[in-house]
């Protein structure tokens, strides 16, 4: 490529012109994603949902091993609509395990200080964000969730996602809630919780996708709950 005077001058003129066009267009990106700063388009930090401490259930609901209950933990998140912010339900499941475990996953998130036989998982699938179910009978996993036959060591309650059939084991050694089958790249997300007397208090949730359908109070007209 030959360097000509005309080419050099054209390039020199083009740089400020292109810069000016980018400067003019940059507010449009903020129009699409109005974060807390001009250059924060590629970050999610200003938009992270927040919840605070909430009582989600009682220890006495989990008397025997494999007892469980579903609960919801409410977080607020930024919404790019006139209301600006909305509450969102993060569905979770609390399970009593047959033995005590360290409720810490391989990502380094500590769900509970010390050993515990009560574990709280976020039911938002870490794969693509569907809500997975607690399946108390592992035969149901084989029948309804993609034909996976658990090995003898997994013949107990499992967690399984209806969308892409990821299967999670709440007692997985060293990483409770890890994935044992299906496309999920990691184990189920944790809630951070404390036990105060009989109350199970959730103080935080592992960062991840949150699901949101209708504002609190609005009810579905048909039985799909």
């Amino acid at each position, binding site marked *: *490529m030959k360097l000509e005077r005309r080419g050099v001058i054209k390039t020199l003129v083009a740089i400020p012109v292109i810069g000016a066009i980018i400067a003019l267009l940059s507010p449009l990106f903020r129009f*699409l*994603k109005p974060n807390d700063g001009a250059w924060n*388009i*590629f*970050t*999610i930090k200003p*938009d*992270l*949902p927040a919840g605070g401490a909430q009582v989600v259930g009682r220890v006495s609901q989990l008397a025997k091993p494999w007892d469980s209950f579903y609960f*919801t933990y409410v977080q607020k*998140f*930024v*919404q*790019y*609509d006139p*209301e600006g912010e*909305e509450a*969102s*339900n993060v*569905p979770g499941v609390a399970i009593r395990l047959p033995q005590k475990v360290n409720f810490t996953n391989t990502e380094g998130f500590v769900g509970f200080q010390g050993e515990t036989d009560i574990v709280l998982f976020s039911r938002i699938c870490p*794969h*693509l*964000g*569907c*809500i*997975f*179910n607690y399946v108390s009978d592992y035969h149901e996993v084989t029948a*309804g*969730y*993609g*034909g*996976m*036959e658990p090995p003898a060591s997994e013949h107990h309650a499992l967690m399984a*996602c*209806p*969308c*892409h*059939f990821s299967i999670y084991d709440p007692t997985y050694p060293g990483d409770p809630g890890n994935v044992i*089958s*299906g*496309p*999920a*790249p990691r184990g189920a997300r944790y809630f951070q919780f404390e036990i105060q007397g009989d109350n199970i208090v959730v103080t935080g949730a592992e960062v991840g*996708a*949150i*699901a*949101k*359908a*209708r*504002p609190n109070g*609005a009810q*579905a*007209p*048909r039985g*799909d*709950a």
Partner: protein
Amino acid sequence: MEAVLANLKEWFQDRKQHLDLFDETKTGKQDNPLYILGDLVWLSWMAVIVSGIVLMLWYIPTTTGAYRSIQHITLDLPFGWLVRGVHKYGGDMLITVITLRIYRMYFAGEYKKPGELSWMILFLSLVLAMVSGVTGYTLEWNQRAFWAAKVILTVPTYYDQIPLVGNLGLGHAIAYIFLGGPALGQGTLTRFYAIHFGISIIAVIIIEMFVYRTRRRRLNLSAFAIVLVLVFLAFVSFMNLADVGDWANNNRTPLPVLSDWYFLALYQVVKYMPPLWAGVAPALLIGYGMLVPFLDRTKETRATERPFFFVIGLLALAYWIGFSALILLNIAVISRDPPIIWGITVVVCLLAFVWEMGYRRRKAQRAAAQAAARAAARPAGAA
């Protein structure tokens, strides 16, 4: 540099001369029913646009109002079922005829010079139609649509985990921009409504400019055929009342949950693959589709004279039907199938390659034999 630009311009002008958007008068064969597919694309698209504008009169684009307004349109309004049916089944028909036309162009070799631009625009129109489809059925705000939108917009977040590139935040930014926040909600519905409407309106403006400048026809069908298609759409709407499903519920994913029919095969692929691959695979597929006129450099248009690309097309068709069947019949075993599918793919591609090489060798031998025969005949004729 300027020579390259001039070449590009010439290439573009030449392909524009042979551009067949709808009427297919350049591709010819007017007696072959496969060549009304282009007209059917325009006709079904217009049916969708007109019925869509009527639906806009009654649709309420809010998370609380959308579901009920669609029930109201379908069940209460006079001829609401017809308008909604024509919109839904017209959209299905649009995607069907675009897909059929893509396969016709592929197997008939019509993407080759000078049809490259026609092919690329048609392929892009399939992608846009599918985006319109997913943004459109989310507007119903029912369970199927909610979870499909949720899954599809979680896929880009894995683009932040591409090895070597690292986390640029780009994938999350894409998801956030489409979701209108970190989660599916009112922001998503508003943006999807805008995208659903915007795709068609911008395409109509561009195409009307093209038609105005080139005086090409949009529709090359007889009045009888047009009426027949519209009556067919009305009949299907009448026989098969468009379903609304269950109201979206963010606390419960139904089991089983399916996507719309044209995403079923992709849905099955997502079950088999790690999520990053599942996000990259459709991009590669679109890339292959757009670039196939430049990958297949031979001049032959008959399928058996370009064996490799013929077999790849058959394989894609077989996968599309096969995966859809697997998910509809619910007979796949996620932990068992992937090695089998990879095995079939590798063996079929290898066999196709062997066929291609063998075909080329035989062709070269034939050409050499003919040249030799000509060389032997020429002195005799001269003498």
